[in-house]
């Protein structure tokens, strides 16, 4: 019996927990990728060690297909794992996670194929691979080099599993909606309607004026929080995420002209960089608590 969708998530959580990762929870703000969860974006900055794993819903408004395409979703799930500093056995750890899911990597054709990663809006870039399993891309593997426009050291490595892809591989399904979420319940039962409505909302109904106004308000608020004498980094970052999501919806709605697009991107990048700088200072002020006595990072055994 192949693992169900929820068992895959549970197995990955157990596995990475055994590797000393904190199993943290999805962050309660819409975002385009698991990397933007503060457990990755902020923790990848500065000298402190960090290990975490979590599921993250990713919102890609322009990828919506009204539930009619078997592979494309405007809302899907990533399983994300970050380890800083990147360990020398990063690849072996990843392969171990596939074994934990019952995939015999010796029997399959597993390959690491060049695929560098960039998230220009948040000033992030890294080098790595997409991981092929018998020709199917199931994960993205990245060594961060830059986060929030800042060169990072030590380097964080990040694994992003496309949970639906991985489940399709494990369950041998040709459509995401046919995946078994749990016995008797399909992915489609859970998400077909959310896909239909999400696509309609993003492409047809989202109120452009409201979103544009919210972008301005969130940008203003993030900026204000960052220039306080003692900046409120986390609250500011929430508003940066809100800006980024509003921008993505506006784009799906076809409401951003070419000239405006770059302006929006620059504004978000500027905020993301200021937030990153503020976070680095903030951890310095705290005296880098996670460095304290910790040859072993802040994991739970």
């Amino acid at each position: 019996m192949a693992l169900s969708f929820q068992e895959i998530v549970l197995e990955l959580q157990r596995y990475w927990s055994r590797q000393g990762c904190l199993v943290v929870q999805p962050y309660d703000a819409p975002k385009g990728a698991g990397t933007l969860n503060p457990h990755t974006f902020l923790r990848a900055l500065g000298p402190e060690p960090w290990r975490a794993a979590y599921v993250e819903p990713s919102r890609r408004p322009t990828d919506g297909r009204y539930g009619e395409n078997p592979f494309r979703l405007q809302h899907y799930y990533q399983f994300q794992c970050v380890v800083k500093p990147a360990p020398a056995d990063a690849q072996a750890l990843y392969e171990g996670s596939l074994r934990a899911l019952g995939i015999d990597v010796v029997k399959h054709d597993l390959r690491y194929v060049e695929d560098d990663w960039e998230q220009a809006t948040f000033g992030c870039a890294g080098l790595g691979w997409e991981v092929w399993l018998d020709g199917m891309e199931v994960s993205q593997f990245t060594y961060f080099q830059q986060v929030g426009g800042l060169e990072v050291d030590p380097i964080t490595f990040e694994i992003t599993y496309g949970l639906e892809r991985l489940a399709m591989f494990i369950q041998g399904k040709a459509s995401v909606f046919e995946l078994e979420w749990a016995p008797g319940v399909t992915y489609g039962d859970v998400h077909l309607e959310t896909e239909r409505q999400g696509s309609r909302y993003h492409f047809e109904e989202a109120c452009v004026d409201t979103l544009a106004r919210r972008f301005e308000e969130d940008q203003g608020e993030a900026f204000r929080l960052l220039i306080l004498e003692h900046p409120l980094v986390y609250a500011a970052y929430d508003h940066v995420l809100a800006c980024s999501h509003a921008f993505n919806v506006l784009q799906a709605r076809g409401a951003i002209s070419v000239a405006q697009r770059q302006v929006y991107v620059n504004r978000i990048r500027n905020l993301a960089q200021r937030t990153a700088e503020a976070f680095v200072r903030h951890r310095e002020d705290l005296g880098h608590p996670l460095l304290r006595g910790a040859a072993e990072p802040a994991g739970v055994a």
Partner: protein
Amino acid sequence: MSEQTVDLLLELGAEEIPARFLADAEAGLARAVEEGLRAAGLAPATLRSGATPRRLAVWAGGLPRRQADQAEERTGPAEAAAYAGGAPTQAALKFAESMGVPVDALELREVTKGKKTARYLWARRVVPGRPTLEVVAELLPRWIEAIPWKKSMRWVPGSKARFARPLRRIVALLGGEVVPAAWAGVTAGRATQGHRFLAPDALELADASWEAYVARLRAAHVVVDPAARRAAIEDALSPHLGPAGLERRRALVDEVAGLVEEPLVDVGAFDPRYLRLPRIVIEEAMTGHQRFFPLEAPGAGGALAPRFAYVANRPFDPVIRQGNERVLAARLDDALFFFELDQKTPLDQRIDRLDEVVFMQELGSYKARIARVDGLALEAAKAAGFAPEDAESPRSGTRITRSLPRGGALPLHLHLAAQLARTDLTTEVVQEMPALQGEMGAIYARLQGQPDEVADAIREAWLPRGEGGALPETRAGMCLALADRLDTIVCAFATGRAPTGSKDPFMVRRSVLGVLRILRERGLDLGYGRLVRAAVAALPDGVAGDRAALERQALDYFRERLAVMMVEGGGRHELVRAVLGAGRDPTNVLDAWARLDALQTLGDDPGFGRLFELVERTRNITQKNAQGVDAGDVDAGALEHPAERALWAALEGCRDDVRGHVAARRYVEAGRAYAAALAGPVHTFFEPAPAGVFVMDEDARRRTNRLALLLQVRALLAEGFADLAEARPAK
């Protein structure tokens, strides 16, 4: 390996190195090792190398076991400074110390410095050679750092060390000994590793034998030699692809050979219903992301079969084939979905969507660009003689009209194609498969009832795609391809994106080469100067800036590339210069090439070769002295000296003939008529008086007359053919 020599084996084991980096990295490392050893006096007798995604290997065979001892001789301070009252001075002591010899071993020798001969201190010492092991240990980090990566990364905390992906293992053996070296926190050892999954255990190597290294790895599912992997893949593919198919997929074979350590070629199948898709879409779905090889059905006139070949990194297992088949099915399903979706919105309804696709930030969207390209394409058609000079575009701007304009069908086709050419950027298939830009536009245009000429032009506007790529075949395609490139080129120059040695984000260099190739290889008899001027004129005011300067900058760049192209095509430097500095329209590529060919032919005529020097002399003397003198200043009645009268008569006698030949582009004949008439008289003219004339006569009138005469000699050939003053090889 003999008693006196020893072999060096070096392997750098890394996490998967990108396939496209491997060839340069392998060669770069081998070069660094060889040059490093040679410079250290340890030149290897033999060098071998290998590369897989997980390792770079170099073997240097037949190294001396230690460096040879080096004798060093040096001259020190002069005698006067070396001894005071018979005792060695501080300077003498220092010199002895620096040479590592006792002071009484110093000698005095006579040395000549300049015009002076004096006695100086002199010493000789023997610098003992160091053991090879020690030298290699010292050099190894530098070799690693010399590898040329297209892109590299950091991964060691607090270190600046860079490699393509994290370096995890160094094998460095000199004979049986491990080289005591380390880099980026990795210490060299003797253990390598086989295939990631099939032979993960450490393989201890006894010594630096290349044969043993290759054989041990082969047994551990790794083929170290990239050429051997390529050959294995080609052998297995060739029954399916045939020699032509294999040739066509050469780049893909190379890439795939860099993605595996132990290649296995297998064939999978897909549902024939996907064969409804355009062939190029199926092929792109296979080759673009999956690196699969499309196969043709035997005896079906080259039609695609519902099968594909793929290369795995391990021996066959049915689950691998199933997995690859499933992935391809998903991609083809996706493509079919998009292909059908795209057709719900015809191309002409997509023009407004181009407003969302940025061309260059300062210049707005692709939609804003359409009118410029439309106008330029018509200009190119006129310049090429495909349309009359009074031809009109049906309508400028971005509205489509289908009425037949003045100038006939071509202007209409150009107009339609210019409107639609980039609309496929907004289609789902192109967003998924950017390599199909232009191809999809043509396919959709045909499906939507556009004339073939329009569909072909949409496709051909992208040609040539790469250096040496196929060129447009149709008139409309050529004009649109020229227009598209010229707009890109002048826009890049206008916005400060001129190509530099390392940066050329808009691929201006490639665009210019494309223009030159189309003009030459399609035999278009027109000057690019006219098109550059039109492209500059079409720019919006805010962007163009100083239009004259912009035009000059673009023209200079074109001329520079044309010169490079001509030299690469076998033209001699000086002849290319002579040709590009002359002519009625030096920007006419076809004409410039004809003139170059003629000049090369004439250069072999003994009578003509002599002219190069003579015309160069006319330039040298007029350059310095003929300010304010006009070639037309010759006063024939005032010519006195027989040599100058003879030269004038020769000029008068051949002028019409030469010009007639030039006008008819009979350049060889023009050159011969010129040489026959003028070689003798010019030679005599330059003879010392009294046979020749003294040009710089004190009498101003005489002097002006003679200088004007010489200006005419040079100009007669330069005005339409070649400036011979430039044509002499540099000494």
